[in-house]
């Protein structure tokens, strides 16, 4: 698409090399300086660069460079909508939405979405684009990539093929499909927004700035795509090819601005394949492994969990006994256990206890926990 930009009178001399743009931090500011700051590879602030990009986009529109593409857009969108799903789960209180977006990635009903509290329930409901309501199972998730795979009963379902996903350069015109604000239900279709990829960059997830464990590359989009409920939506180019999955709402707590981004499919594909192949499975699914004869237990590790009062009490650590393996490894109260030994996704106190029963007490245990918004790993040495 970039050659169009060069053809456009307004953007012929681009003030920076588009492909080498690198944005180490938030691109939009809200303080007194209302311009975007984009750093080139010489690392000096280049306030004009992003504006130039936007100007390029505006120039395309103004020039009507893609009249053909524009007239085909409704048709293209129509072909994409059957792949989109609306996901309903936990939440619905304290400003937490109980819905998010997702899209089908197999004919048999696998759905790619973001890992979030919405999925933290045994009652996940999915509405297909045609209005069919289905109960969904969590196949697995990788909270480090904030990705989850659901499965609904189905066959011959219209879907995105992850292996056909493509990478995109800054300047690419994109569409974002999602059920933002939960505005659609039943057979109502997902919302579609248009925009341009501003940059492809690494998400600097510094604690206290962006509250996310994901630090990999993202597409930053010039449209407000990451609204409540939009996470798990699809980012496609104007040919309908899948580029990425919309991330969560991400607020820069320093300047109160919001980042609109999608995670490239290439960053997720291997993990998704692993999840579907049985890695990163929730512990509550059937487990064929033999139990350990002399297993670990929480008491020996020095961990006291919060009282197990719900069907699926999140495995928060209430107390760590002084001098215990947990204490020495660095586990602290209020840590939330996510993984045991990397691959077993833990969703409840019960599941954590169950998981320990498979591990011999002579073996070390690796726990992955969330502390605040940070993802930390600890290895507990047996005594």
């Amino acid at each position, binding site marked *: 698409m970039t050659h169009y930009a060069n053809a456009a009178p307004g953007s012929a001399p681009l003030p920076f090399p588009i492909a080498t743009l690198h944005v180490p931090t938030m691109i939009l500011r809200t303080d007194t300086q209302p311009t975007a700051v984009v750093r080139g590879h010489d690392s000096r602030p280049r306030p004009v660069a992003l504006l130039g990009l936007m100007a390029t986009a505006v120039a395309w529109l103004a020039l009507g460079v893609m009249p053909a593409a524009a007239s085909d857009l409704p048709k293209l969108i129509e072909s994409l909508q059957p792949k989109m799903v609306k996901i309903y789960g936990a939440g619905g209180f304290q400003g937490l939405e109980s819905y998010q977006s997702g899209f089908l990635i197999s004919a048999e009903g696998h759905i790619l979405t973001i890992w979030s509290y919405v999925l933290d329930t045994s009652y996940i409901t999915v509405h297909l684009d045609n209005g069919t309501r289905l109960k969904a199972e969590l196949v697995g998730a990788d909270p480090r990539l904030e990705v989850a795979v659901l499965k609904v009963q189905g066959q011959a379902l219209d879907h995105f093929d992850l292996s056909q996903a493509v990478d995109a350069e800054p300047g690419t015109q994109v569409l974002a499909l999602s059920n933002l604000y939960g505005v659609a239900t*039943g057979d109502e279709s997902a919302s579609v927004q248009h925009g341009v990829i501003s940059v492809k960059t690494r998400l600097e997830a510094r604690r206290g700035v962006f509250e996310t464990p994901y630090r990999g590359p993202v597409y930053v989009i010039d449209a407000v795509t990451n609204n*409540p409920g939009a996470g798990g939506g699809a980012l496609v180019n104007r040919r309908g090819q899948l580029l990425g999955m919309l991330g969560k709402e991400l607020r820069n707590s320093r300047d109160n601005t919001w980042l609109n981004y999608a995670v490239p499919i290439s960053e997720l594909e291997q993990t998704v394949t692993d999840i579907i192949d049985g890695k990163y499975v929730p512990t509550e699914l059937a487990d064929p492994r033999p139990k350990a004869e002399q297993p670990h237990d929480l008491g020996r590790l020095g961990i006291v969990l919060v009282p197990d009062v719900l069907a699926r009490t999140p495995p928060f650590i209430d107390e760590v006994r002084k001098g215990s393996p947990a204490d020495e490894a660095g586990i602290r109260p209020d840590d939330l256990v996510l993984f045991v030994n990397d691959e077993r996704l833990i969703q409840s106190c019960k599941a954590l206890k169950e998981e320990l029963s498979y591990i011999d007490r002579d073996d070390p245990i690796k726990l992955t926990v969330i502390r605040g918004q940070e993802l930390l790993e600890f290895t507990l040495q047996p005594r």
Partner: protein
Amino acid sequence: MMHPVALSLCMAALLTALLAPPAAAQVPDEVLKAEAQRIEMLKKAGAATVAIFGKGGQGGGSGVCISPDGYVLSNFHVTSASPHLKVGMTDGNLYDAVMVGLDPTGDVALIKLLGRDDFPHAPLGNSDEVRVGDGCYAIGNPFLLATDFQPTVTYGIVSGIHRYQYPAGTLLEYADCIQADAAINPGNSGGPLFNERGEVIGINGRGSFEKRGRVNVGVGYAISINQIKNFMGYLKSGRIVDHATVGAQVATSDDGRVLVTNILESSDAYRRGLRYGDEIESFGGRRIRTTNAFKNVLGIFPKGWRVPLAFRHDGKLYETYVRLDGVHREGELAAMVAGSGRQQRNPRPQPRPGDDPNPRPMPQPEQPKDDGEDKDKELPPGHPPVKASQQKLPEIVDKVYEAREGFANYYFNRINQERIWDKLISHGDFTGLQGVWTVKAEAAGGLESTFELSDSLVVATLPGGKVEMPIDSKNPSLGTNLDPLGSGGLFASLHLWRRFLTGGINNFGNLYYLGTVPVPGQDELYDCLVGVYGGVECHFLFDPELGRLAVLEMFPAGNVDPCELHFLEYQEKDGRMVPARIEVRHGDAVFQVYKVNEITLNKAAE
């Protein structure tokens, strides 16, 4: 304070303009042609877009002129109930405008520019043809930037259609609206959403904002223009118009059917056979598969319209027309509008089907509270509404404004009554014919009936015998005698027909112009006058082409089927057009079809 995103977009647009060299040889011709067309279209569209200002620079919003005589559409939450508004156009002039009609539930206001009969105006499109992905332009006055009356243009695509946005209490419901990602900011309220052909497809008025402060988040909602077309006749009546209910609640079942979960026995839908548990097949001509779809249809029709409904009862499909009741009680809406101001402008999202059943509290705002008192989080993206003026109106406005309770501006009601009457009597003037009217008519099967009508008596000579219905003109009570049996009140209806034609609009009783309504089986909308006399309500419907009386509906009480007289054919008699064929209907049945053989109209005895 302006949001940085908005500002940087503005700057981006500015930069484009600055960087653009005059021409570039390598640009293909069709691209340049498309550009020129777009510029031309936007110039026209912009000229029809107006900036609405409050008194003393307080508040304001946008609007769009839709006719050469200056009718302008905007949002109720922009204009409030102000009789007089100041409106800026791209010609640099600030025009006086007068309030015409209000739809507070649908958040629509109709005002009229004064002083010209050749205002630049925009054509209305067909919002039912809008598709997701279509390009669209929001034009308006965001952040009240248009101090020079030059509007701001933002481009986007249609993100969703047939969206439903819950009302605030009973006001500001956005049903069947168009969702677009064109930037819509405070001040865009009331402004037009154009398609790529420069036709108005909606009126921008709402956005999903929540926690990011009241600026564009790429999710704006426009009231569909087809909904406004349905309401247009009502709005032009100068009234404060109401939305509709069917008196039934519906819910979506797990298998995706929409079922009646509650129904009022007093509703017209009940009388048409709709019962608890029935499945709604289609409504207003649309297939219904979700509760939202049902509410969408309901939201686009005004109170009093008859709308096609198809439902399944015990497996059998029934098709009928239901008469829609109002959302608000008599006077309630007017009272709410009279007190309009801040208290109603606070829409809250409600739980939706499919959501967690627990009500979802609003998230706390995290944005700086920059605009003082105007802290509505969700909506409406307008500045404070124009406050009703206590001041004396300028002469140009005073001439076309008449305050009356329940009306936004009674002047427009009166001139419509007069318009209808003038057209009606062009086919024959019956005033002064106060004597006995004798109508000899032949019913099906050749049996003749004679009706003698006078001020105090109806005498009917029917095949079964002679019947009299005396009318106490001092204390008339027409709703108590619904003879003949099965007609729903034919005698009373004929009496009222004569009363209307002989007395005219000023002597019938309490009479007003309702607006335009559909007649089952007809494509076009009919002008409707409503008169109340003798304890009954009478609807007079006039065909849009000739202006002849086409239908008379007599409602003896609320919650009862009317007696309907359909004047199917006319004939000439002494230079006047008189009915030649009258169909009498009641409920779902045709009571009788009369062929009028002879009609005698006598002057008063003196």
